[in-house]
């Protein structure tokens, strides 16, 4: 069972990467990378069970954290052109 | 917020971080427990210096307990709308009819508003794209999803959970 679903998940990781490459706008690419990260978390968790090493779950947890933070950081960079600007100050103006 | 409240927030933050450390670590030697206590205290000092402990609710770490029955109901809704969206994707004609609707928010606290917007987004077929003070704009994949939100079932359940008597 684990082998079959690990293979399917590897295939869908490949599909997510292809959609990140052919995406037209930058938001399509960010969405594809976000999907790739979620699928990778599931892949690491499954791979830990496949090789009988559940310690891999710690890596999956950290990968989930990094995936969320990287998505928010890239979005902030594309929306404001700067990592350090506060979104609250800009909300006052006319966007 | 009074000094008394902030003190209780710090204590509850320390307790919940220590429980998280014990759960994730799995080793219970004195050295590792001491290191864990040290890092918990450093995290509490840093977050109080950053001004993160100013939430407008009682104690956040216990506040979410009243939303647990709502969460179980939400998982059932997620499964239903997942089956609907999967059918639409697998249909060769792709029968989608996207629309934008605006919903009124009847919750008082910020936390309950965020829970409402997040559960709209978590349900496949509807995504909240703009959250204002008293209204939320929703992009829906089909007219049936928008109708389901307009009946206000989810809104009523969250307002009910927010005013729950326990905790």
């Amino acid at each position, binding site marked *: *069972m*684990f082998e*079959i679903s690990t293979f*399917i*998940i590897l295939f*869908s990781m490949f*599909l997510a990467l292809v*959609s990140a490459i052919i995406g037209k*706008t930058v*938001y*399509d690419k*960010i*969405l594809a990378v*976000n*999907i790739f990260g*979620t*699928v990778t*978390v*599931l892949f690491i*968790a*499954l791979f830990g*069970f496949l090789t009988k090493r*559940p310690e891999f*779950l*710690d890596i999956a*947890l950290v990968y*989930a*954290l990094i995936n*969320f933070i990287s*998505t*928010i950081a890239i*979005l902030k960079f594309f*929306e404001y052109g700067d990592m350090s600007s506060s979104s609250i100050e800009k909300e006052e103006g006319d*966007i | 917020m009074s000094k008394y409240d902030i003190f209780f927030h710090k204590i509850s933050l320390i307790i919940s971080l220590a429980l998280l450390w014990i*759960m*994730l670590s*799995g080793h219970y030697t004195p050295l590792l427990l001491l290191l864990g206590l040290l890092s918990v205290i450093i995290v509490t000092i840093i977050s109080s210096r950053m001004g993160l402990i100013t939430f407008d609710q009682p104690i956040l770490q216990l506040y979410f307990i009243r939303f647990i029955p709502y969460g179980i109901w939400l998982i059932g809704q*997620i499964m239903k709308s*997942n089956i609907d*969206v*999967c059918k639409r*994707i*697998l249909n060769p004609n*792709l029968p*989608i*009819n*996207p*629309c*934008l609707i605006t919903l009124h928010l009847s919750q008082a606290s910020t936390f309950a508003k965020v829970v409402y*917007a*997040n*559960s709209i*987004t*978590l349900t*496949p*077929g*509807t*995504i909240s*794209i703009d959250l204002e003070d008293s209204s939320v704009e929703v*992009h829906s994949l089909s007219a049936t999803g928008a109708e389901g939100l307009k009946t206000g079932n989810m809104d009523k359940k969250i307002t009910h959970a927010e005013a729950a008597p326990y905790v």
Partner: protein
Amino acid sequence: MSNIDIISGALIVAGSLSIVVGLLGVYRMPDFFTRLHAASVIDTLGTILILSGLILYQGFNLVSVKLLLILIFILITTPTAAHALAKSALHGKIKPILGDD
């Protein structure tokens, strides 16, 4: 192979198939906002099915508590990321395609 193993194996395979369905939706949908709906199928159905299958396979111990923590964490963060994506796409002058009501 006991009954619980069969149920959890079926849950895991169903979850990985639902991920493929979600990616098919990402390829088929016409514009960005409808693609987000297809992506949320992956984030909810795939994650819930696979991680609950693993929890069922493992039984109750420290490992399954960690799996539950990953599940709760993904269910909290992915709608936040999807909301941020939709909001900044709307500010980035991407107009959603609307159907005829």
